[in-house]
């Protein structure tokens, strides 16, 4: 059953197409800029850019969750977030390892994105046609989610490994187990925004700012992991920028909560109408 009475068609101020461009564009620019700057300058301090790109992808994913789940999927919000990261991790692994096999590790991100989106579309089609969800934007939503998941995995994994090479990903992210935090933090960054704001008076800007806030928290988490794999300077930069961004977005989110809530009171009894 639906818990919150969904957002019913999910009215939105920012168009999904625009958010898709920001999300995918931001992720690709962030990851490639980090990879190019790091390799050209022979450093790893630009890894934060990839993590920031992953936040953009996660926000796009959060918007896709909002659109799909706006059709009355309440208790399914956490599941769809996990599904996004599950599809994303398949896409990311496929893309990076294929690129390594072909000898063009820089192309891995693009291959992963394309593969993940096609994969997401197929899963969406199966969900709609075979399982009978009958949600008009299911295919589109899962395409977005799968792409967002793949970009989130690659971006945050890059912030830990400091390299796009599949071998480095395996040794620094998979074998150390840091993939676990990328997976679960990434999943929460995609599912938490809509889940936390579920209800008839949900607003898109509040949900997306929540996404930015949780995404920044994930940046702090991968920053903590990169203490073990990258230089201390790079790790500290990631942690400090992530924490500053988290604080900024949390304050912003609280401002929007005060704007939207019926009342924010220090203490008190129930509203007079309910006593």
């Amino acid at each position, binding site marked *: 059953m639906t*818990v919150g009475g969904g957002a019913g068609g999910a009215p939105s101020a920012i168009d999904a197409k625009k958010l898709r461009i920001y999300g995918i564009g931001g992720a690709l620019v962030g990851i490639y800029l980090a990879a190019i700057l790091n390799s050209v300058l022979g450093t790893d301090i630009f890894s934060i850019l990839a993590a920031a790109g992953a936040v953009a992808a996660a926000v796009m994913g959060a918007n896709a969750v909002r659109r799909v789940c706006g059709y009355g999927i309440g208790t399914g919000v956490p599941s769809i977030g996990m599904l996004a990261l599950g599809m994303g991790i398949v896409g990311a692994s496929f893309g990076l390892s294929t690129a390594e096999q072909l000898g063009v590790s820089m192309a891995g991100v693009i291959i992963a994105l394309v593969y993940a989106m096609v994969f997401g579309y197929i899963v969406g089609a199966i969900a709609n046609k075979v399982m009978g969800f009958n949600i008009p934007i299911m295919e589109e939503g899962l395409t977005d989610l799968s792409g967002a998941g793949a970009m989130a995995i690659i971006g945050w994994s890059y912030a830990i490994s400091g390299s796009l090479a599949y071998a480095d990903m395996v040794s620094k992210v998979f074998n150390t187990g840091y993939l676990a935090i990328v997976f679960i933090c990434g999943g929460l960054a995609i599912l938490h925004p809509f889940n936390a704001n579920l209800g*008839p008076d949900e607003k898109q800007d509040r949900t997306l700012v*929540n996404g930015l806030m*949780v995404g920044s928290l994930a940046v702090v988490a991968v920053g*903590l992991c990169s*203490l073990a794999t990258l230089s201390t300077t790079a790790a500290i930069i990631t942690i400090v920028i992530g924490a500053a961004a988290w604080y900024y977005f949390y304050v912003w989110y609280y401002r*929007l909560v005060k704007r939207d809530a019926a009342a924010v*009171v220090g203490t008190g009894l129930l509203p007079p*109408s309910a006593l």
Partner: protein
Amino acid sequence: MDALSMGLVAAMGALATVAGASEDIESDVGSQSNPNSQVQLAAQVGNPHRIYNKAISGEPPANALWATTAAVVAYTLITKFAMPALFAIAIGASVAALFNGVFSTSAYFGRNASQRRFNQWIYLDIVRYTTTSIMAHAWITAFCITCIAYIQTQILTPHHPFPMPVIALIWGLTVGAIGSSVGDIHYGGEREFQWRLFGQGLNTMLSGQIVRKAEAGLRNSIDNAWFCTKLGGPLTGLGFGLTVFLDNWRTTVFDPVTQAGLAIGMGLFFVILMNLYNFYVETSIRKKYGPYPGYKGDIAA
């Protein structure tokens, strides 16, 4: 099998028992998981309340996040900075508790702000004193589970081949799943519907008609934690403790490589035994207390 391994398995069982109990109470203080849908519905059917609405996700992913966060921080501190394990795990659990605080407060703010039309207010005093209680319980859960993961991967022989954060992720998912299925019934089925006879089931008509007033004043989530500490928490602890203990016991007593058949057979034996015991408990309760007043016979679906 040696004495040290058996001692470690016993310690893991004890840690798991504590983790299970704190996990369930943590979710109950915040009304997470199954009981959350009733807390969410309450305002929508005209019953605004002063109960915490911690809609983070289902308990399994949420607890996986706390446990994994604690584990990655501890793992980093142990491997990179050679910090003593106990300190490292305590610091990791503290980071996990801070993460928990962020998720909890943002869910409380967000869910209640999205119920503007039902006049559900946001009470800051509730945020102040309930969130800290939630974070404290999350700290205990994360600490215990990371200790289990550390024992499995670093001390217990043979070492588990998976890395520590992944083990923590799996145990986090498990403790969440067990808390969700064992402990939540005590809160969602009984505490929220105290005025109904327990076991009658919940009629759709009663959705959202939760108890909002306490013995004195308005009920809050700390009252619910007090109630759930009596049965829900300990039972969840027992469930999770047994899962961890029995599962590791059979692979410690029987070598998983040379005596794999015996280890698997023992696992099957436990499953069958527990099913029989469950069947016995259910039938004896039905005999003792049922049929419930108001039971009109099974209705064809």
